[in-house]
């Protein structure tokens, strides 16, 4: 019955959304791993990237995308130096609430910049051709969905290689697992943490590029809602490990995509309640994370 209405387009859109959310989950999970900090301002990195794309849309495409990556990584590193570093070792509540403040600050600044021309919102339209549907084996698929999938899978593979095969990756994993011991062995906090933050910035920039294709109108609250949903997904999946966090992000994106595609809008008014009731249920049944199999309660090790 469900399969009857589940067309190929809906399925691929859901997978595409899951891929974007999975990438955001990696960005959030990486920083959480080394700092035990939930970065609520992660969405504003994406927002900054989207504005950069909008303001540089007259530039050649490659330059525009490069500018987006530059701005987002720069902003992420600035956040690390000015905010995360002084807060290292503080209680999770203080760190989280500070990132709320940073999130509001960046939105307020974006609002002022955006309103200079007297109207809210800027359009990042350089890549919108990717939103056109193309035909694959008789089924209609929007090109961006394929790009999303390609970029997400490529980024995740690269990241896995980086973490599993390089020395900095080994140090990062060690820092995420037990920072105190890692430092005793000579792993430098001031190298591993900025590296992770920069990496999470790279991912945010890639997400900005993909999200503006789907939704070219950029406003100060761009990616805010998505960040909240991904945070929920990350905790539901299991924030203590990168791969469970990533799966959690993918799952919540995929499920949202499916529901949006399957249910007519007049039936979805209580959908958020149903979804969040499910979230509560999962948290009650598996508080360590839906995908965290056979894992003891994590002992957070702060720097």
């Amino acid at each position: 019955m469900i399969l009857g209405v589940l067309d190929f387009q809906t399925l691929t859109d859901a997978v595409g959304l899951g891929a974007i959310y999975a990438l955001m989950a990696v960005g959030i999970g990486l920083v959480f791993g080394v700092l035990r900090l939930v970065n609520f301002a992660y969405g504003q990195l994406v927002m900054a990237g989207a504005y950069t794309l909008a303001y540089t849309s007259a530039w050649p495409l490659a330059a525009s995308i490069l500018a987006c990556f530059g701005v987002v990584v720069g902003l992420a590193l600035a956040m690390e130096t000015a905010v995360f570093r002084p807060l290292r070792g503080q209680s999770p509540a203080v760190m989280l609430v500070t990132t709320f403040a940073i999130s509001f600050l960046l939105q307020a600044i974006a609002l002022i910049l955006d309103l200079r021309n007297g109207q809210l919102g800027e359009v990042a339209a350089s890549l919108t051709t990717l939103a056109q549907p193309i035909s694959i084996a008789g089924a209609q698929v929007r090109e961006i969905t394929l790009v999303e999938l390609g970029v997400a899978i490529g980024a995740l593979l690269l990241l896995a290689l980086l973490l599993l095969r390089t020395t900095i990756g080994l140090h990062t994993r060690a820092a995420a697992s037990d920072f105190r011991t890692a430092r005793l062995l000579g792993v430098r906090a001031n190298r591993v943490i900025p590296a992770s933050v920069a990496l999470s910035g790279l991912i945010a920039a890639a997400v900005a590029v993909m999200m503006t294709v789907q939704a070219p109108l950029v406003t100060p609250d761009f990616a805010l809602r998505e960040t909240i949903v991904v945070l929920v997904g990350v905790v539901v999946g299991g924030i203590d490990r990168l791969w469970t966090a990533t799966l959690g992000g993918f799952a919540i994106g995929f499920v949202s995509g499916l529901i949006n595609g399957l249910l007519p809008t007049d039936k979805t008014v209580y959908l958020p309640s149903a979804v969040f009731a499910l979230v509560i249920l999962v948290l009650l049944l598996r508080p360590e994370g839906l995908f965290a199999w056979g894992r003891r309660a994590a002992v957070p090790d702060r720097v």
Partner: protein
Amino acid sequence: MAEPAVELESVEVRYGAVAAVRGLSLRVGEGEIVGLIGPNGAGKSTTLNAIMGVVHPHAGDIRLRGSSIRKRSPESIARRGLALVPEGRRIFAEFTVEENLRLGLASGRKRNGGNPLDRAYELFPVLRDFRRRPAGALSGGQQQQLAIGRALVSEPEVLLLDEPSLGLAPLAVESVFEALRGIREHGVTILLVEQRALHAVALADRTHVLVGGELRLTLNRTDAGDTDKIVSAYLSS
């Protein structure tokens, strides 16, 4: 007289209002093995943590070859040639044995040529056999060997060990102490914290008894047979 490898001068470490180590002074000469024994809560681990920069002393100074390290971070102290084998081993259970050893190279100290992990493999051949296994699958004794091997691959000048025999079967204890003798042969200076007082006294050039955060007594290797002396030092608190 040559500069001692490690020197503590009137070191005081406090946790809140409680002083864990009070006015502690001690020297570890180049190539020596010095033992540190004492009852639980005497401040032995705190002393090692203070040397390693995990906690910073409130007063006094800690010097490595004459230069002060009291305000440095653990990673920079590791870089200067100190390595700690922490209490409870603290291996990365989900990483492979080889990855654990490679983490020992994180201090980035200059090394002679060849595979840097060979040092650990020579001393503990079992680690080479199991190098692709997750470290958590090793036995307790093997995990301790891994923790010591991990500290050694960075070719430290000074090795600090925090109760390496804790929780090990008698046979494994013997092999750990055997390994320490081998490490001394290589000219590594060792500061050893132990609960097994007799083992420590028999191995070390000197063994200090720490009670209530203060040095109580110093024992020589010849005191190893004098159980009464050791016991009374423990109980004099």
